[in-house]
């Protein structure tokens, strides 16, 4: 499953059916296992992957508000992708840079000490 995800960057329905067939399990069982682990995605990811940290430190410093802002701005929930396949959104539990919290990451770039306004600006810069 991890291989498929690496290859396609997400697990589409056909892939889940194929994996199920290969392992002699049902696609619901595979989906069940996959949803148990946070690492799997089920929609095609966008050009940019936005990750918002909701780990303890970020949470305490209003990470949730950053998440809310990003959700509203992009019109999607974590695990989803915008209709134009530009952005995907994920939530993360601690990037290991709590000192810079709250943290948001776009692809490999880390944006620290976020505020809702800064978050909007960051997103706009990718348009």
């Amino acid at each position: 499953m991890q291989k498929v995800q690496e290859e396609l960057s997400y697990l589409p329905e056909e892939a889940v059916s194929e994996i199920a067939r290969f392992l002699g399990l049902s696609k619901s069982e595979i989906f069940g296992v996959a949803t148990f682990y946070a690492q799997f995605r089920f929609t095609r990811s966008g050009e940019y992957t936005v990750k918002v940290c909701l780990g303890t430190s970020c949470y305490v410093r209003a990470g949730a508000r950053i998440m809310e802002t990003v959700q509203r701005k992009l019109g999607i929930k974590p695990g989803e992708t915008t209709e134009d396949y530009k952005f995907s959104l994920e939530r993360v539990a601690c990037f290991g840079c709590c000192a810079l919290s709250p943290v948001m990451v776009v692809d490999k770039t880390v944006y620290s000490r976020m505020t809702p306004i800064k978050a909007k600006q960051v997103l706009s810069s990718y348009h």
Partner: protein
Amino acid sequence: MDTVTLIIDGKEVKAKREATILEAALEAGIYIPTLCYYPDLIPFGACRLCIVDIEGMRGFPPACTTPATEGLVVHTNTPKLQELRRNIMELILSEHPYSCLTCPKNLNCELQRVARYIGLEKVTLPYTYKELPVNRENPFFDRDYNLCILCGRCARVCQEVRKVGAISFTYRGSETLIGTAFNQPLQEVSCEFCGACIDACPTGALMERANKWEGLPDREVVTTCPYCGVGCQLKLEVKDERIISSIPAPDGTVNHGQVCVKGRFGIAEFVQHPQRLTSPLIRRNGELKEASWDEALDLVARKLKGYKADEIGVIASAKCTNEENYVMQKFARAVLGTNNVDHCARLCHAPTVAGLVQSFGSGAMTNSINEVGNAACILAIGTNTTEDHPVIGLEVKRAVDKGAKLIVANPREIDLCRFASLWLRHNPGTDVALLMGMMRVIVDEGLLDAAFIEERCENLDAFKQALNDFDLDFVEPITGVPRDKIAQAARMFATNSPATILYAMGITQHSHGTDNVMATANLAMLTGNVGKPSTGVNPLRGQNNVQGACDMGALPNVYPGYQAVASPAIREKFEIAWGCSLPSSPGLTLVEMLEAAYRKEIKALYLIGENPALSDPDVGHVRETLAKLEFLVVQDIFLSETAKFAHVVLPAVSFAEKDGTFTNTERRVQRVRKAIEPIGDSHPDWWIICQIAKRLEAGGFDYSHPFDIMEEIRYLTPSYGGISYQRLESGGLQWPCPSDDHPGTPILHVNTFVRGKGRFIPLKYVPPGESPDEDYPLILTTGRSLYHFHTGTMTRKVAGLNIIEPEGTVEISPEDASQLAIAQGDKVRVSSRRGEIRVKAKITEASPPGVVFMTFHFVESPANILTNPKLDPISKIPELKVAAVRVEKL
């Protein structure tokens, strides 16, 4: 037996070794509260309500996962345990809306029961509501996961017992939910709508929609499913004299609490359908008009009197009870004076009877359904078991689970292929070649069971001679199966013991169907797989009582119990018993009767519960024939396609409105019990026949209840001698059961074959009657689907079944489809030498190139317009499985 003794709540309890503490307690009648435990499932140990206190052990282990070992002293109901349980319950209930008064499961809910037992009064924890929408996407049941307590019973039964896995735990933590892949509707995740998940659910989360708000039933009646030959035991729930639900009887010997969609959701609606016939109909000025019973019965009696015995044909029914088939054939023979009596077994398993009688001496399933699960090797040839005999399919899956090797021989990629060690995709109609090829390998490699053959069988040398023609060089091109697969299958079957053979219509419905059957018998004998548990040759009979209708002598050449009409001694026995003289020559078979009717030699036909206008080959011709009859009486519960041709239609009752017995595919006679009063002015078939007999001044038809008929059957049929209603109260009995103290016979041919020695029959390969050619380049093969039954007179009345499978299709391989430029769902014309129909195309890899597939359930696209009526010379079965056709895009 291996038992252990322990003490539970001060009571000495004996339990099987390997039992858990919970099972030991249940066995001894001690209640321990449980939520995630469910019989037949692997213990889950998740809810922790079943915790017990074991002396000398620290902590509180769950009873459902802790083995019962010798000398344990267990307490199940201490204040400490109850307090812990209350805490657990509070946690569960803090996520469960307390809307019991408006919950459909109220009074029948396991949560309520447990809460009461542990004395839970109020929940102090803050309450969270999941606010999920109720899922109503499937036609049969609602899924309200707000009420779900995540015991996992539904998903586990779906995975462990049904081996479907349509639902599963998804997500995790506080978001955990029972769900499907991508939250798709159940229809799209291979759900079979068996309803096992509903039956397993302790709460109101899963509820059958049709009876959701009915509350508790007034009474429950255990009876036998009227659809297929498995003979599942059903519990009909009756409220206000209406059936509100049919659920599996938990202790049914055959089905162990499981059923399929037809038995679960396909009963109440057809029984209580507004289109049921409620009054006799007589044709007046070309139209069927309502009439009184007296009028109709008088008319039938008067008309029948006007024909000579051999101008009348009688067609009995594999849907009716044993008692009714007995009365029907007695009526034909004793009152009308003809042996022209037959039924639809002709169209499915006549070759089984003809073939197995020659090989073994008895034409029935040699072993029992429950043995299949313990086989080490299963050859499933010409049977789509999971669709056509779903509950036997569960046994096959159980065997595979325990490590059995499954060999599937089928041209189509059926569901069972998922579980198979080996799938042989042979060309339709080449079964003899395939089986003989396998046996050639077994003989060449010395894998045969020489001791068994020496002691029990005869004619091996002649048979070996015949095998000389079946070199794999010859077999490979004919069957289309690679030679090493054939060899592998042969070795697998010969070296894994016990090995059993399952087959169905894929073997019988051929112009050489009897040869096919004898080939399976040869294979079983060659490998010593007869007369032992989990072995044998097991024809899976299609209709609920096709076995019984044959047993009862609804056949032109035998009386009840396969006693030959042609034998003077036997005829005399029946003449004395019935007080009349009987015709000595065997009568016509079903197909022959229809032919004779076409030639106007048969002028009157009396037909019960059958629908030849849809089920028989070349139905165009059949309909022409029916139109030629001077007098046609049809007894049925609906106005079937055939009844529309009738001069008199007599409304019969369904299985739910009468008493009687059915004999399932494993020769098990089981009770049918009346659950509700007859609908409208309908009457049981046996009653109707007796009324006509009396009007024809015949004696011996004064039965007051089917009980009386069974007593007469017992007296005249040695194999049913010990089968009485009293004994059937405590479960079914498998014939032969000759006397009151005989336990019945689960396995035939144990020490000797019924005919003495098992006979090897040399066989030759004969190609099917029609091969593809330029005009008709494809092979059409026909079958059934899980969601409908036979000609659909019953299942097509069930809305939900029509939603799942609304119409017939022709299944075609992607290769053929692309060559014919056919896209998914296109309307196509399918034509054969006999006719043509229009139907939607379904492109699927299940069909091999060159072969198309249709079911025969649908009036709108009657596959049997196309099929080939060419008969097997021995058993007279028509070749329904192979016809050459052409498919064109419209």
